[in-house]
């Protein structure tokens, strides 16, 4: 079977982001970018399925500016077979990404599509569900375990009260949660090899998709700052303050 994995280039998770002074967005100039952590987990899962002999080919796809090629190369260095970049400078919202991915799925005809459950920049947690909807495929979101069967996939999902397992008919879509796996480190020889792997570049227009944003961002600002309070010297003082000063216990 063939697996398509979608990866996003985002501000590195360790960076403390700042809103621009004019409120139009966040500072991304000269900020470290890397693959969205949930997408690394998605790539790792695809590779593990291939290593288990359950998948033949892994295609990694990313959408956005030219620099997203780096993100695809990272996926190739981890073990994906080839890459596709849908190149655009335009702002892409989840619905537009889902439509572009749908066009790519129709072109590539994978049996399984794996995405991260959310990107750590927009925190939307939508694209996978939207793509599944547009394709009419079943979805296994927030996956912590994926078991491929014959024509089906069982997905264990992280839900609010614990875990839930669903059986999906293939082709299906899975979004990865943090606990699905531990992504591997990329080794230098694999980075060199990844440079030789094929990477196709497409434009949204090639896929015939309207990517106009549906939401207008009016303002981006920092939330009210929380001030550090006081340090107490003992547990007894802490309990006293909570009882007599804060009145919370």
């Amino acid at each position, binding site marked *: 079977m063939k697996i398509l994995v979608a990866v996003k280039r985002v*501000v590195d998770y360790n960076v*403390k982001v700042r809103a621009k002074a004019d409120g139009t967005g*966040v500072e991304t100039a000269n900020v470290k970018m890397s693959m969205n952590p949930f997408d690394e987990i998605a790539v790792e899962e695809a590779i593990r399925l291939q290593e288990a002999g359950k998948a033949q080919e892994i295609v990694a796809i990313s959408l956005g500016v030219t620099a997203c090629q780096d993100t695809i190369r990272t996926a190739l260095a981890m073990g994906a077979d080839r890459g596709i970049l849908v190149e655009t400078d335009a702002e892409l919202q*989840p*619905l537009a990404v*889902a439509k572009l991915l749908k066009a790519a799925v129709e072109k590539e005809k994978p049996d399984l599509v794996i995405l991260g*459950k*959310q990107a*750590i*920049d927009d*925190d*939307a947690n*939508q694209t*996978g*569900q939207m793509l*599944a*909807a*547009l394709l009419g495929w079943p*979805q296994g*979101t*927030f996956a*912590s375990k994926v078991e491929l069967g014959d024509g089906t996939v*069982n997905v264990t999902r*992280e839900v*609010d*009260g*614990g*875990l*839930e*397992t*669903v*059986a999906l*008919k293939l082709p*299906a879509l899975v979004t990865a949660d*943090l*606990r699905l796996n531990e992504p591997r480190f990329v080794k230098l020889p694999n980075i060199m090899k990844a440079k030789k792997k094929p990477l196709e570049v497409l434009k949204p227009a090639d896929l015939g998709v309207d990517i106009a*944003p549906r*939401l*207008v*961002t*009016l303002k*981006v600002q*920092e*939330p009210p700052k*929380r001030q*550090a*309070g*006081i*340090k*107490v010297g003992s*547990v*007894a003082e*802490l*309990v006293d*303050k*909570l*009882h007599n000063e*804060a009145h*919370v*216990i």
Partner: protein
Amino acid sequence: MSILVIAEHDNVALKPATLNTVTAATQLGEDIAVLVAGHNCGAVAEAAAQVAGVKKVLIADAPHYAHQLAENMAALVVGLASGHTHILAPATAAGKNTLPRVAALLDVAQITDVIKIDSADTFVRPIYAGNVLATVQSKDAVKVMTVRGTAFPAATVTGGSAAIETVAPATDVGVSSFVGQQLTQSDRPELTAARIIVSGGRGMGNGDNFKLLEDVADKLGAAVGASRAAVDAGFVPNDYQVGQTGKVVAPTLYVAVGISGAIQHLAGMKDSKVIVAINKDEEAPIFQVADYGLVADLFAAVPELSKELDKLKAAG
């Protein structure tokens, strides 16, 4: 404005997050319908009809709604969408699973984790792990959004007298089925609804040491939470996790024990009213947001806290 709220429930009782979502809906308009889709879920519909502010309850009862799988839920909601200007669900695992699917089928954007309603088309939501707030305006005919429960008070569970209408179930889509579940059993309050939360991090050392926190939690009537580090280390189940990728909580009192305070954790708890940090590292970032900080070894401080709470109780 005609608003459809999708109820979250387990076929027996309405989940509290639904009540916060109803409050958000009342900020948009008065014509509020609540959809209860499930199997043998009449009691939930009865409860929803009592909720203050709800004008109508729609009940869709069929075996294929028993576990509210997204494929069937989305098909049902899309069928009911016409005539509604807003479709809301709590930003819980269930709401986040279903609503983007609904939005895509309606060809509209979805707005995740709304924390403030500025007007019928303008909403505020956190991005970048809550480090930035974005105000967004929707140009779509139907606004489909999930609501962050902790940002809106719960609607009163009595005082309403909504009519209950039965809606015909949509046909079973048949591409997915429920296999089983493993729910965490606990007598303590639910994390997202608790007034007090005691959370542990990597500093707890192992799962057994969480008993120290459970002891304090029981004396306070608190829920027990955890940081991602504690969950990943296997100390506690993952549904304990508070943070960007876990649950977002805003209790009256949040006690962080052995938690350094990474931005991903702060995203899940920094709207708590009072934050207490107990950590032996006085440089830990958690102290930058804590109202009361205690630099101490938790293995000495937590048992002492337990004793002090006993004294407090004895003193009345």
